[in-house]
């Protein structure tokens, strides 16, 4: 952490912490609902990486698009997808933001231009390049924020896509959440070059490494990257260095890393650090903090109630949405 920005406004500080808390509390409740059997399938929680989602989303507007991965609850919440439909999606209910058809790994939302929820590692990256191509060809000002993990940088689609985006100078923000483990494989066990941003730089695009535990550092880097892309400078790459506090998915016994390592990272987690800093700077009291937690908990509880009260899609609808229902006349 580099410390708080000079002249930080109290309201803004509490907003950023509040957004991160909303994600943390949502994920905690997801884990409970998973244990209770209300959520099934694969579920990947975001604890530890909240500063990235929140920092990035501060610089995006409604004209911009987001392409995400299977660890996308945090991105979805920070992007403004309401928690009720989000939780209902995890429950598989028809009121879910993807109509219940996707589940935890496939969050989609047209209103916020949230294009998944893509669960093939690296598979969303070409999609983001195409969305950016559409922005450019239609002379629209949008940029496309494309999230993926450091594991994806071993995939061919990553390299093909960076080359194409740089070649055509497309407005993509390549956002690599480097949490050091591709499922259970440590970075140094899978990559010859572990400075991920250096790999990206070889494609001739703007590329920097950022402390992904510092929401202000993320926001600042994202603002510069978005400005670069928006002004026709082409794609930008951010390697956001972070750590996942929980298991890869709910099936992961974490045999590949030490508890001590996790505890070390938790001490420098994005929430605890920001909380400590804001209190030390006199920008937040313990009462303020407790109020933020209560508000987040209340929102999550309401979302769970919504999801639980929602109906299942009738089995008669099974074959819907294989093809578009609105046909040209």
């Amino acid at each position, binding site marked *: 952490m580099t410390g708080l920005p000079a002249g930080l406004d109290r309201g803004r500080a509490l907003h950023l912490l509040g957004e991160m808390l909303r994600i943390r509390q949502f994920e905690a409740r997801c884990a409970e609902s998973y244990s209770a059997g209300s959520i099934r399938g694969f579920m990947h929680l975001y604890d530890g990486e909240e500063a990235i989602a929140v920092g990035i989303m501060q610089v995006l507007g409604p004209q911009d698009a987001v392409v995400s991965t299977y660890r996308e609850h945090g991105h979805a919440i920070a992007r403004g997808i309401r928690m009720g439909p989000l939780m209902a999606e995890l429950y598989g209910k028809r009121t879910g933001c993807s109509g219940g058809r996707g589940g935890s790994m496939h969050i989609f939302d047209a209103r916020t231009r949230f294009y998944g929820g*893509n669960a093939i590692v690296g598979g969303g990256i*070409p*999609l983001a390049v195409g969305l950016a191509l559409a922005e450019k060809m239609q002379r629209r000002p949008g940029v496309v924020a494309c999230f993926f993990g450091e594991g994806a940088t071993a995939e061919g*689609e990553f390299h093909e896509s960076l080359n194409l985006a740089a070649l055509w100078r497309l407005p993509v923000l390549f956002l690599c959440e480097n949490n050091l483990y591709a499922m259970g494989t440590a970075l140094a066990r899978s990559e010859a070059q572990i400075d991920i941003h250096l790999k990206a730089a070889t494609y001739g695009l703007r590329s920097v490494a950022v402390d992904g535990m510092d929401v202000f550092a993320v926001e600042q880097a994202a603002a510069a990257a978005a400005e670069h892309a928006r002004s026709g400078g082409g794609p930008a790459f951010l390697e956001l260095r972070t750590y996942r506090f929980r298991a890869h998915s709910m099936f992961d016994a974490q045999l590949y890393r030490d508890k001590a390592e996790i505890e070390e990272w938790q001490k420098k987690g994005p929430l605890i650090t920001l909380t400590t800093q804001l209190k030390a700077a006199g920008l937040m009291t313990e009462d303020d903090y407790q109020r933020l937690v209560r508000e987040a908990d209340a929102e999550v509880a309401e979302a769970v109630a919504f999801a639980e009260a929602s109906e299942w899609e009738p089995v008669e609808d099974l074959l819907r949405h294989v*093809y*578009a229902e609105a046909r040209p006349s």
Partner: protein
Amino acid sequence: MNAEAVVTRITYREAVKQAIREALRSDPRVFLMGEDVGHYGGCFAVSKGLLAEFGEERIRDTPLSESAFVGAGIGAAMGGMRPIVEIMTVNFSLLAADQIVNTAATVCHMSGGQFGVPVVIRMATGAGRQLAAQHSHSLESWYAHVPGLRVVVPATIDDARGMLKPALASPDPVLIFEPASLYNMEGDLTDASVNADLSTARVHRRGTDVTLITYGASLWRCATAAEQLAAAGIEAEIIDLRSLRPLDDETILQSVRRTRRAVIVDEGWRSVGMSAEVAMRIVERGFYDLDAPIARVCTEEVPLPYPKHLEDAALPNAARIVAAVQGMFGHAN
């Protein structure tokens, strides 16, 4: 004679090019991208001249990165454009299979119908040009297996000219397979203003004694076989499937109910392919209408060899089709 009824004689290649040109002229959202579609003119010369007419913004040469440019076509379609993505051959499309199968085919469903993928992906398929085992296969049935995709194979000049427009109007991803051996074929374009539909089969030749069910380049092998059979007193009906997904069961069954015999001719391999699918659909709903077991003429189970005599021996041909039909009538030659 009015202008629209004029019959013009053109090649299959020219028919495809005319369709692309018309689409580019009539809709600013349409663009063409793929390997060597611009300055080279297309590996099969389909897009030759289009770069000069439409410029680099709309005729986009891509790097050799099938996954990225097919995925970019999918993304551009979701972002409001109407891309025509050209892949050199179906063999190369396997490098983009992730984007086609895992993304294009699933987004509508995974998003609960919020997003569609109105992309058109064209590629060459099939053998006959001595291009050996990595440029000659007929893998379209692999894609026809996948819900969420539409798969068409234009075999005639009219379909080569007519299928692109409805494909671009489709809110779903459409894969168009162009048999490479047909690009030089000349034929009559009967009416350029007619839009071919994307979901029905077509009776190519009327007959009463046996139904030959086929698609793509094998249509013309069946046509030759039918002439030879007619000389021997057997009138074969030929059905051009045109669309492999959806499959037009009704046209197939109506024909088989009349002829009571079916031979499926498929340039794909016999095992686990289109011919098996078509045969089973006949069995499921038309078993008691059959007077003979269904027969199949497919490519031999071998990666396609380079030498002409071996390639020819591997592929379906008129002699094998005639023999299969005669076998049904109990007089194998």
